[in-house]
C-alpha cells in the first residue's frame, strides 16, 4: 500500500475521500522505477464521471500491457479539495502511486465535452505545470489531448503539446517507441520529439502550424511551418474491433460511479447519418464486434467485476446485426448469474418491447424516444429517420404492454426551425397521450399517462453537415422554450404532459468552443483565472465570469455563433482529415435545406469518403 498524497486531516475534511486514494479492484500496480515511461491519464471531471468512461479504461489497459509503461489515472479534484490543494500548495497526484503528475513523462487528457475546458486548466494548474505549452520546459510532462473534442482542438491548442486524433488503439505504440528511442540515443529534446511525433499519423502538434487571420476575422491561412510536418492530420480508425484490446478487467471504484455497471461496447460508428450528430459522422464507418467476441467479453466481465448490471454501449444498439442473438444470450447468461441488463438507445418496436418486458420492471421504467424534432419536415431536415408512424406505433405497443410513461427528447434551435416546428413538439406529446387514452381502457389504467418532453438547444459541431449553421442569442432560445411551454398548456391532454429544458447560456458557450479558433484560448484562460471551473455542472456554471473574460480579451462571441459560414470559408478544423469529405458534408447541408433525406449506410452508400478505411459497413 502506498503512502497517500493527502494527509488524514485533508481526507477527513473533503467529500468522498475514497475518490483520492486509488487502491481499487483491478487497478494496476507497478514499481515506477521499473518502467521507462510514466503516463498520467486524465479525465478532467470529477472521479465518478471519469471512472464511468470506457475510453480511459481501454487506454489504461492497453498502455499497461507494455512492461516499459506505467499508466496511472488522474481526475479533477472536486471543488473542496481544489481549494485545499491551492491553499496548501500540494501538487496534483496520480491515484496509483500517489506521486505528483509533474514528474510523469506524459499527461494525457481526454476531451469528451467542451464544457470541461476550464477543468483542463485546473489539472495543469494544480499539477504546477505552465498552462501554455510554449512555456513548458524539458522537465515538464508532454501534455497530449485525445477524444471527440480534438475534431476541433483549436480553442485549446495553446494548452497542449500535441493531440492524438482518432481511435487510441493505433498509434500510441509508435509514439512511445519514438520517445524511448530518442531518449536512448540522447537525441531527445522536447522540440525535437514533437517535430518527429508530428510525422506519426494522427498526431497533431499545434505549435508547428502557422495561423493567420483575414481582416474580417476569418481564417486566412493554416499551414505547417516545416516541409516534414504534414498539412493534413489523418483520423485513426480501427478496422478490426475484434482484434482491438478491450478492458475485460476494468478498474472498479469504491465510490459509486455514474456508470456502475459492465459496459459492453458492441460497435462503433452509426449507419444513420443524422445531420446534427458529430459522433455519427466522425466514428464512421460503422463497425461491429462479432457475437462470439461479445459473448466472451460478457462472460469474462461478469466474473472479473462482480457488477450486478451489464449495459450495451453503441450509438444505436438497434442497428447491431446480431442484436436478437446477443440479447437472448445475455438474458440466459445473466439470469443465471443474477445480472441485470440495461439496454439504452434501443428503437421502440415489438422486439425491443418484448426484451424490455423481460429485463425491466415496466411499472418503474419509462419508454424513451428521441425524435429530436416535432414535425416531420424538421425530422427530414436533420435526417432523423424516425416517422410519426414509428413513434405512435411504438407507443401503442408499449401502452398495450403496460407502460404508461414516455420520455421524448428534442432539440430546439435546429437550422431552419420555424415556430410551427416548435409547436409540433407539444402537439406530438398530446397525440401520444390521446393514443394512451384511446388504447388503454379506463379500468386498466393506473392513473394518467405521463409524457415528458425534454429539449436541449442545438449546437452545431465540426464535421457535420450543420457545421456552417448559425446559432442564436440566449434570449431567442428561451423564447422558443417558452413557446413550446405555452403551446403545451393549450393541449387537450396538458395534464399528462411535462416539459423540461436546458440552460441557454451554456449552449452558447459550448457553441463558441465547438467551432472556435485559437483566439478563444485566451478567453478560457481568463475565465479560469476568474474562477470558472466545472462549467458542465449547473451549480458551478457562472456566465458572468465568461462575459468578463470575453470582454477583457476583446473576443466577440457573436463572430463564432451568429454567422452562417459561407461555403468557401477556411474552417479552423479543416486541417483534419476525418475521412469524411467536405463535399459530402456540403451536399448534406444543401439537402437539409431542401428537406431531403439521405438513406442509411446499409441501404445505400452516400459517398461520405469513409469507404477508404477499408472496413465496416461499407463492405458489409
Amino acid at each position: 500500500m502506498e503512502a497517500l498524497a493527502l494527509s488524514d486531516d485533508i481526507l477527513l475534511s473533503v467529500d468522498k475521500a475514497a475518490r483520492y486514494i486509488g487502491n481499487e479492484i483491478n487497478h494496476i500496480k507497478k514499481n515506477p522505477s521499473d518502467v521507462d515511461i510514466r503516463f498520467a491519464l486524465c479525465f478532467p471531471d470529477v472521479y465518478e464521471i471519469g471512472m464511468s468512461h470506457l475510453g480511459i479504461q481501454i487506454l489504461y489497459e492497453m498502455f499497461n500491457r507494455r512492461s516499459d509503461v506505467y499508466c496511472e489515472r488522474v481526475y479533477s479534484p472536486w471543488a473542496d479539495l481544489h481549494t485545499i490543494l491551492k491553499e496548501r500548495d500540494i501538487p496534483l497526484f496520480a491515484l496509483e502511486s500517489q506521486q505528483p503528475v509533474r514528474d510523469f513523462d506524459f499527461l494525457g487528457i481526454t476531451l469528451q465535452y467542451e464544457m470541461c475546458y476550464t477543468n483542463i486548466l485546473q489539472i495543469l494548474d494544480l499539477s504546477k505545470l505552465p498552462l501554455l505549452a510554449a512555456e513548458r520546459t524539458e522537465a515538464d510532462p508532454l501534455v497530449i489531448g485525445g477524444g471527440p473534442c480534438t475534431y476541433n482542438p483549436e480553442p485549446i491548442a495553446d494548452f497542449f503539446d500535441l493531440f492524438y486524433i482518432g481511435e487510441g488503439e493505433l498509434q500510441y505504440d509508435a509514439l512511445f517507441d519514438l520517445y524511448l528511442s530518442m531518449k536512448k540515443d540522447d537525441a531527445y529534446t522536447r522540440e525535437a520529439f514533437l517535430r518527429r511525433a508530428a510525422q506519426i499519423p494522427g498526431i497533431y502538434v499545434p505549435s508547428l502550424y502557422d495561423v493567420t487571420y483575414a481582416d474580417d476575422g476569418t481564417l486566412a491561412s493554416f499551414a505547417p511551418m516545416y516541409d516534414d510536418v504534414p498539412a493534413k492530420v489523418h483520423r485513426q480508425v480501427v478496422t478490426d474491433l475484434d482484434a482491438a484490446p478491450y478492458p475485460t478487467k476494468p478498474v472498479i471504484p469504491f465510490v459509486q460511479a455514474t456508470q456502475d455497471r459492465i459496459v459492453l461496447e458492441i460497435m462503433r460508428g452509426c449507419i444513420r447519418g443524422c445531420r446534427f450528430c458529430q459522433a455519427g459522422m466522425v466514428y464512421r464507418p460503422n463497425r461491429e464486434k462479432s457475437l462470439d467476441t461479445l459473448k466472451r467479453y460478457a462472460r469474462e466481465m461478469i466474473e472479473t467485476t462482480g457488477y450486478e448490471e451489464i449495459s450495451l454501449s453503441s450509438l444505436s444498439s438497434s442497428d447491431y446485426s446480431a442484436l436478437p442473438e446477443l440479447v437472448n444470450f445475455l438474458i440466459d447468461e445473466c439470469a443465471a448469474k443474477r445480472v441485470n441488463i440495461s439496454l439504452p438507445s434501443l428503437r421502440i418496436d415489438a422486439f425491443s418491447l418484448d426484451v424490455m418486458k423481460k429485463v425491466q420492471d415496466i411499472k418503474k421504467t419509462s419508454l424513451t424516444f428521441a425524435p429530436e424534432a416535432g414535425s416531420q419536415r424538421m425530422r427530414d431536415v436533420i435526417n432523423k429517420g424516425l416517422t410519426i408512424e414509428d413513434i405512435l406505433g411504438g407507443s401503442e405497443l408499449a401502452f398495450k404492454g403496460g407502460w404508461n410513461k414516455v420520455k421524448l427528447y428534442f432539440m430546439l434551435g435546429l437550422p431552419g426551425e420555424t415556430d410551427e416546428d416548435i409547436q409540433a413538439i407539444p402537439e406530438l406529446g398530446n397525440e401520444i397521450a390521446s393514443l394512451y387514452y384511446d388504447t388503454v381502457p379506463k379500468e386498466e389504467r393506473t392513473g394518467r399517462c405521463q409524457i415528458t418532453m425534454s429539449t436541449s438547444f442545438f449546437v452545431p459541431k465540426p464535421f457535420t453537415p450543420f457545421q456552417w449553421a448559425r446559432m442564436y442569442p440566449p434570449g431567442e432560445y428561451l423564447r422558443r422554450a417558452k413557446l413550446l411551454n405555452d403551446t403545451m398548456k393549450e393541449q387537450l391532454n396538458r395534464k399528462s404532459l411535462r416539459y423540461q429544458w436546458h440552460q441557454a447560456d451554456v449552449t452558447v458557450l459550448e457553441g463558441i468552443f465547438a467551432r472556435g479558433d485559437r483566439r478563444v484560448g485566451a478567453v478560457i484562460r481568463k475565465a479560469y483565472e476568474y474562477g470558472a471551473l466545472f462549467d458542465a455542472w449547473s451549480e458551478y456554471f457562472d456566465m458572468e465570469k465568461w462575459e468578463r473574460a470575453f470582454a477583457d480579451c476583446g473576443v466577440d462571441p457573436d463572430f463564432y455563433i451568429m454567422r452562417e459560414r459561407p461555403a468557401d470559408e477556411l474552417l479552423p478544423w479543416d486541417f483534419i482529415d476525418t475521412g469524411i469529405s467536405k463535399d459530402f458534408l456540403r451536399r448534406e447541408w444543401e439537402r437539409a435545406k431542401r428537406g431531403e433525406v439521405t438513406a442509411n449506410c446499409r441501404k445505400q452508400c452516400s459517398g461520405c469518403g469513409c469507404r477508404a478505411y477499408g472496413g465496416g459497413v461499407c463492405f458489409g
Partner: protein
Amino acid sequence: MANANPNKQPTVRARIRFAKYGVMRFVGHLDMMRFFQKAIRRAGLPIAYSGGFHPHQIMSFALPLGIGVTSEGEYMDIELTEKVVPENAIQRLNDQMADGVKVLSFVYLPDKSQKAMAAVEAASYVVGLKEPEGKAVHVLARQGADGSAGMGNDGSIFAEMPLEPLFREGLRLFYEEADDIIIIKKTKKSERQLDLKPLIYEFKLSDNAEKTAFLPSKDVGVSNGDQHDLYFYLTLSAGSTDNIKPELVFSHFMKSLGIEEDAYRLAIHRLDLLTRNPEGQFVSLGDAVGLL
C-alpha cells in the same frame, strides 16, 4: 445459483469477521457494502438473494465504521444457499479483497441466533494519540491554587505538564472519579442531554508495560502505521440505542482538559464488537456464535 426462487430454498447463515486498515479507512460504510457485494460475486460464493423485482444479496453489517477509523473487528452476516467449507470461503474472499481489507474468520450461525446488527452491545477501541510534529511543548494544564495539578475552575494558574501525567490526571477527573459526564447530544432534529458515564464501560490509558498489548495485530496496524505517544483503551456502548463513538468521547475529554479538539492527532482503531453472554459478560461477536 440458478434458483428460480431463492426464497423458497433453505439457507444457511454465516458470520464474517474482517479487518479494514490502511488506505481503506477512507472508504465509507455504504461503499464497503457495495464492495463486498461485488467481492462475494467474484468469489463465487452461493449467496442467497431476496425476492422481488430487484433481488439483493442477503447481507447485513453489524455496525458502521466511521471514515478514517481502522478496525480488526468488523462483522457482517450473510445467507448462503449451500454450505461452503469455512477455510475455503475465507480464501476465496481474501483473493478478492482490496489491499487493506482482510477476512479473518467465517463461522456458521445456529438457526435462531440473533443478527449481528441486533446483537451488538458494545465496541472496543484502541486510540493512539500523537503530539503534532514540531510542537514539543506540552499543553498547558490548569494548576490548582494549592499547587496540586488539577482542573480547578477558580483561581487556577497555568503550568506546563508532560503529556502522560496530564492525560492520566485528566482521565481521572473526566472519567474515573466523575459521577456523571453530562453532554448535549445534537441530532438533526433535536438536542438532548445525555450522561456518557454509564455508556463508557472502560476508558483507560495504557502504561508503558501495557503499550504493546494494546497494539492491534501486526498485519492490520493502527491507521497510518505511526507510533503514537499514548494509547487509550475504550469499551463503549454500541448498537441501535446509545451508540457512542470514540470521537465523541474524545472531543469531550479534550474539552475537559482545556485542549483544542484538533491539537493532537488521534488514530482510532476498533478492536472488536461485543455482545453479552447469558451471564451478562461481554464476549466477542465472533465468539458468541455458539451462545446465542
